[in-house]
């Protein structure tokens, strides 16, 4: 016992000493782990099984249960897109590279952009861009995924997100490295969209704007605790048409992102879309995991509560505190993730989350049903001989409805990150889908 007390006193006085050198090119987390064994130990646990009602994953025992099975309408919604081939639950960070390499979506040609968020790519980007990582990233969308992935392996950087991706090897400060994010947040700053969750942008805007907003310099430490995650947990475009893009030019609201895609044109001048719906022919936008965007619309974000506060909460380690690098569902960790701020029982907190998620889940199902009815009505109209031209209003409504539905389906908190905003988005999804159904029915009956 005496030793115990003594050790605790010492710990508090003594910050970390380095045993090995780490540099910008040290992508292997095990090396960093020699200096920071506690963070590394918890980091490794992202390979463990986790499971909650709507979140988590099956871990290494099996390939994760297919999402499609739970919500059968998803499959029909995605007809024509690679996602309808294989839409799995996410898993822990340890699996990010492996899961991407194994997905059946590989059957369709993928671009090298995909790697931005699934591997420790910065040395590869610098290599491809002659030292300029931004230029390097811009190369990758022209190269195939297979090829890019092979380069990564050959260079020895085939690791999932690693310490160097979030930390400055000199100071250990949290930082962002990903060109996609840095460009995106600069677009956002340069706009005049309100950003209540990111006050440092407001401060930057009051300046001369002569140099672009630089998150690594201008952001507060609290903001960086979210930005680190926003390098990947965001909506994007990453196929071969143009470089990886985060669509934040008009703001972070669902409608702002939609507007940017609607205004984007393809090389041939036609309106941008991710895929044509196989059944209806509608030009569909695919949403991917807009966690950062949805979070930014909620009251936690407005209150300065960051991703890391909930997903990497501090834990006590003797006299000092360390960030839990076992990034996972906070529902498996309520005492550290929530009770530091909410002094109510674990049971009550879980009940609050469940109440929020259940409401959104039910709305999601209702929206799915509405979309299926729209597709049925379109099919009926086509059967009756309607042209694509005549169906255009219905198909445009399908595009809008699916964007909204997918916004919450693809987001990973079942709407917890901004409960009312999620419900609002789903409300619009169902309404628009039903308007599309009506539009299609009217065409059908005119035939």
């Amino acid at each position, binding site marked *: 016992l005496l030793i115990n007390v003594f050790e605790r006193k010492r710990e508090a006085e003594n910050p970390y000493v380095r045993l090995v050198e780490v540099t910008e090119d040290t992508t292997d987390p095990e090396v960093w782990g020699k200096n920071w064994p506690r963070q590394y130990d918890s980091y490794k646990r992202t390979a463990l099984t986790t499971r909650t009602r709507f979140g988590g994953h099956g871990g290494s025992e099996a390939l994760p249960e297919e999402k499609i099975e739970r919500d059968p309408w998803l499959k029909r919604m995605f007809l024509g897109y690679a996602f309808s081939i294989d839409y799995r639950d996410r898993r822990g960070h340890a699996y990010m590279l492996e899961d991407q390499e194994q997905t059946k979506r590989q059957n369709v040609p993928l671009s090298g952009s995909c790697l931005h968020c699934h591997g420790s790519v910065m040395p590869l980007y610098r290599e491809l861009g002659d030292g300029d990582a931004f230029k390097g990233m811009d190369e990758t969308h022209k190269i195939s995924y297979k090829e890019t992935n092979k380069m990564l392996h050959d260079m020895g950087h085939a690791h999932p997100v690693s310490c160097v991706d979030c930390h400055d090897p000199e100071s250990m400060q949290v930082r962002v490295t990903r060109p996609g994010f840095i460009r995106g947040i600069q677009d956002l700053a340069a706009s005049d969209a309100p950003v209540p969750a990111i006050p440092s942008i407001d401060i930057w805007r009051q300046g001369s704007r002569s140099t672009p907003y630089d998150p690594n310099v201008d952001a507060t430490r609290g903001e960086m605790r979210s930005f680190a995650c926003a390098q990947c947990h965001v909506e994007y475009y990453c196929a071969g048409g143009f470089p990886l893009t985060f669509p934040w030019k008009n703001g972070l609201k669902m409608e702002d992102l939609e507007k940017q895609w609607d205004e984007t044109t393809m090389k041939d001048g036609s309106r941008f879309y991710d895929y044509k719906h196989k059944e209806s022919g509608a030009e569909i936008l695919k949403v991917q995991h807009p966690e950062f965007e949805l979070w930014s619309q909620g009251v936690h974000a407005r209150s300065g509560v960051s991703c890391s506060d909930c997903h990497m909460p501090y834990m*006590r380690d003797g006299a000092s505190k360390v960030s839990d690098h076992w990034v996972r569902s906070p529902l498996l960790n309520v005492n550290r*993730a929530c009770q530091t701020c909410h002094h109510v029982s674990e049971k009550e907190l879980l009940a609050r989350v469940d109440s929020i998620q259940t409401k959104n889940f039910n709305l999601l199902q209702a929206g799915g049903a509405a979309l299926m009815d729209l597709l049925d009505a379109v099919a009926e109209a086509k059967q009756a001989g309607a042209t694509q031209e005549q169906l255009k209003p219905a198909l445009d409504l399908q595009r809008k409805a699916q964007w909204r539905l997918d916004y919450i389906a693809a987001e990973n908190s079942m709407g917890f990150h901004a409960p009312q905003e999620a419900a609002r988005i789903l409300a619009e999804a169902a309404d628009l889908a039903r308007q599309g159904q009506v539009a299609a029915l009217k065409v059908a009956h005119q035939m």
Partner: protein
Amino acid sequence: MITLAVLLGVAVGTGAYTFRYAEGFSYFSTDPAACANCHIMTPQYDSWQKSSHHGAATCVDCHLPHRFISKYLAKADNGYHHSKGFTLQDFHEPIMIKGKNRDILQKNCIECHDDMVHELFRRDMTKPDVVSCVHCHASVGHGELPTSIGGRDENWSD
């Protein structure tokens, strides 16, 4: 007699030697630093320093009964709790005030603020618990920021 009881209460919890090393005797003073002797109290100490009451009240003013005898008994009782928790590390984290300690706290708010709040009690102060001060004023002692860090990592060998 009383002092003895207190000493026993604490000694049973910690073992006298450890107790001394951990500067246990300062535990009897009203100096907030005494509480911060335990690293586990550090977040509360830090946050108290930034709180509105920093200049108005110290830890014991809020957390121990104001009347002399019960004050020392509560210290003995809490002392046992504290050192048991400290030694075994088997308490819930983050620490959340509860039960008897919550009642003591409530009584202390009222003792200082009787003037201000007697109307809330319709001038009948016999049941101090019917209006919980922290329902609205939870931040007076420890400010806005989280007052404690989350729990220990159970999976680590200590």
